[in-house]
């Protein structure tokens, strides 16, 4: 093989041959505090809820549900445009209960992913041997669950708002009214997200097996709903009014009725629903925190 005369660059390289040191390097840089660690856990949890960083199969369901919800929002917007009817706060308030089943399915997938997975794999030892506390872990997971559900409910609401706001001839007053109705819908979605997500992560934390957690969640939601409905149909007076407390969705519909004036009939027991919702959330959070006190490293 003919070789060429060394180029100046090659000669320079030959004269300066060296073995680079790629041994272990110590780290003297910044170490971020607890707050950042919690934020990292919060963001990573949301990512894993949507299946990012895992296989394509894991992404299908969450994105699929998000897509469906967007589609539903678009359909509502389109129907309103075409028929010229609908609107007002009912337009937005109806979304969570309409898509309730999809939310249940979503929670049945993400709550076990967020919570049961670490329990089942016993990865908690690794988390708790780091500079975060048990309650930091709990709040990060809870926050991630609530954020995901809220985000998924927000998507169709926003599409519907855009659809209405971009109508020609709406005017500033119309826009302002629309914005107000939208905000009410967003607030309502927030309440739904908090109650449903909190309850779901608590239920998921009872087992380390994802399938069991999913099944348990679905059972609780789906079994309790007919019970509440039956109570509402058949019961008279106070019983009928209070029957909605028996199931998360009807509870939320009752709260919605009390706060925004639309939902299931609750008679004068509106405040009871409100209180029940608050207690449910507080109780779930406490139990959820408690669950991790017992876990050993």
């Amino acid at each position, binding site marked *: 093989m003919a070789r060429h005369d060394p180029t100046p660059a090659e000669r320079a390289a030959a004269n300066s041959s060296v073995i680079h040191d790629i*041994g272990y390097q110590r780290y003297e840089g910044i170490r971020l505090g607890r707050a950042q660690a919690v934020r990292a856990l919060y963001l990573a949890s949301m990512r894993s809820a949507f299946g990012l960083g895992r296989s394509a199969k894991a992404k299908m369901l969450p994105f699929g549900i998000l897509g469906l919800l967007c589609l539903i929002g678009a359909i509502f917007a389109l129907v309103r445009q075409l028929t010229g009817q609908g609107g007002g706060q009912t337009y937005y308030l109806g979304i969570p209960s309409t898509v309730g089943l999809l939310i249940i399915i979503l929670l049945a997938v993400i709550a076990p992913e967020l919570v049961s997975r670490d329990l089942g794999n016993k990865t908690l*030892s690794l988390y708790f041997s780091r500079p975060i506390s048990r309650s930091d872990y709990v709040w990060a997971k809870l926050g991630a669950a609530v954020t995901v559900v809220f985000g998924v409910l927000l998507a169709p609401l926003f599409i519907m708002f855009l659809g209405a706001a971009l109508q020609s001839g709406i005017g500033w007053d119309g826009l302002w009214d629309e914005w107000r109705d939208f905000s009410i819908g967003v607030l309502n979605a927030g309440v739904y997200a908090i109650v449903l997500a909190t309850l779901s992560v608590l239920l998921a934390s009872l087992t380390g097996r994802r399938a069991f957690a999913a099944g348990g969640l679905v059972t609780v939601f789906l079994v309790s709903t007919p019970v509440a409905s039956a109570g509402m149909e058949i019961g008279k007076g106070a019983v009928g009014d209070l029957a909605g407390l028996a199931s998360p969705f009807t509870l939320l519909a009752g709260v919605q009725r009390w706060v925004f004036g639309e939902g299931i009939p609750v008679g004068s027991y509106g405040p009871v629903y409100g209180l029940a919702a608050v207690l449910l959330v507080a109780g779930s959070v406490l139990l959820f925190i408690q669950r991790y006190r017992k876990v050993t490293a």
Partner: protein
Amino acid sequence: MALIETQLLTKRYANGVTALADLTVDVEPGIVGLVGANGAGKSTLIKILLGLLAPSSGQARVLGLDPMADGFKVRALVGYMPEHDCLPTDVSASEFVTHMGRISGLPATTARERASEALRHVGLYEERYRQIGGYSTGMKQRVKLAQALAHDPRLLLLDEPTNGLDPAGRDAMLTLIQRIGTEFGISVLVCSHLLGEVERICTSLVAIDGGRLLRSATLSAMTEASGVLAVEVDDDGVVDASAALAGYLTERGRDVRRDGRQLLVNLTDESVYDEIRDGAAELDLALHRLEQRRHGVVELFRSPAPDEEAHHGAA
């Protein structure tokens, strides 16, 4: 500064089990072996050192800090490799170690870089992009070690790091730990029930029995020479070689006794070496082994345990 100090550290559980009893020990930096503590004692000590469990009485200090008061600081400086399975199955090693690095306080890019380096140091190359679920036991152990190492701890707590590994895997892991303790400059506490491993890589040892301290010393102190020479000559079926050599030495006034296939000769003076050599040469024996007997860590456990009867659940 001592690496780990405890004073009269005691932990009694509600069900009556005393995991640690008046443990007082001062551990210097290096590679430290923790032996003899099984089950309750060992995991209790680790949890106390990490600040995850409060002792019933007594104190502990890790890297000069009190784990109860400064738990977060301690855990930022310590890397822990649990004995049990603790890895998720559906993410890659690379993702997981990066994630853990961020939870330890490393900024995002640094976490990615250090995770990649840690995985390289433990010997995981292209496998690191595959999901952990498909890894062999050896690979999983390495991932556990990498996540403990990524945030550059000052102290590594390794709980039975060679658990489930076959001899080749065990050898590789021990070599790696030794490198970490010597080249990387990180102190290591290795919990192991295999004394051979401990004698191989550790510089000092803490032996716990029934929750109490049995002995704490440097390895060299514990495995010092005993003043006795062990000699092995091969019997080839024709001659009882050991007996012949024993006779030769006894004739010259040496103190000889037999221990299985070995002859033990008191090393009263240096000329014993030459007599053994000459005896083997004259009698045409096959000299197979000649060494000064050393004490082994196992001897600690041959004597009765301190307060054995008083302890619930002692061996």
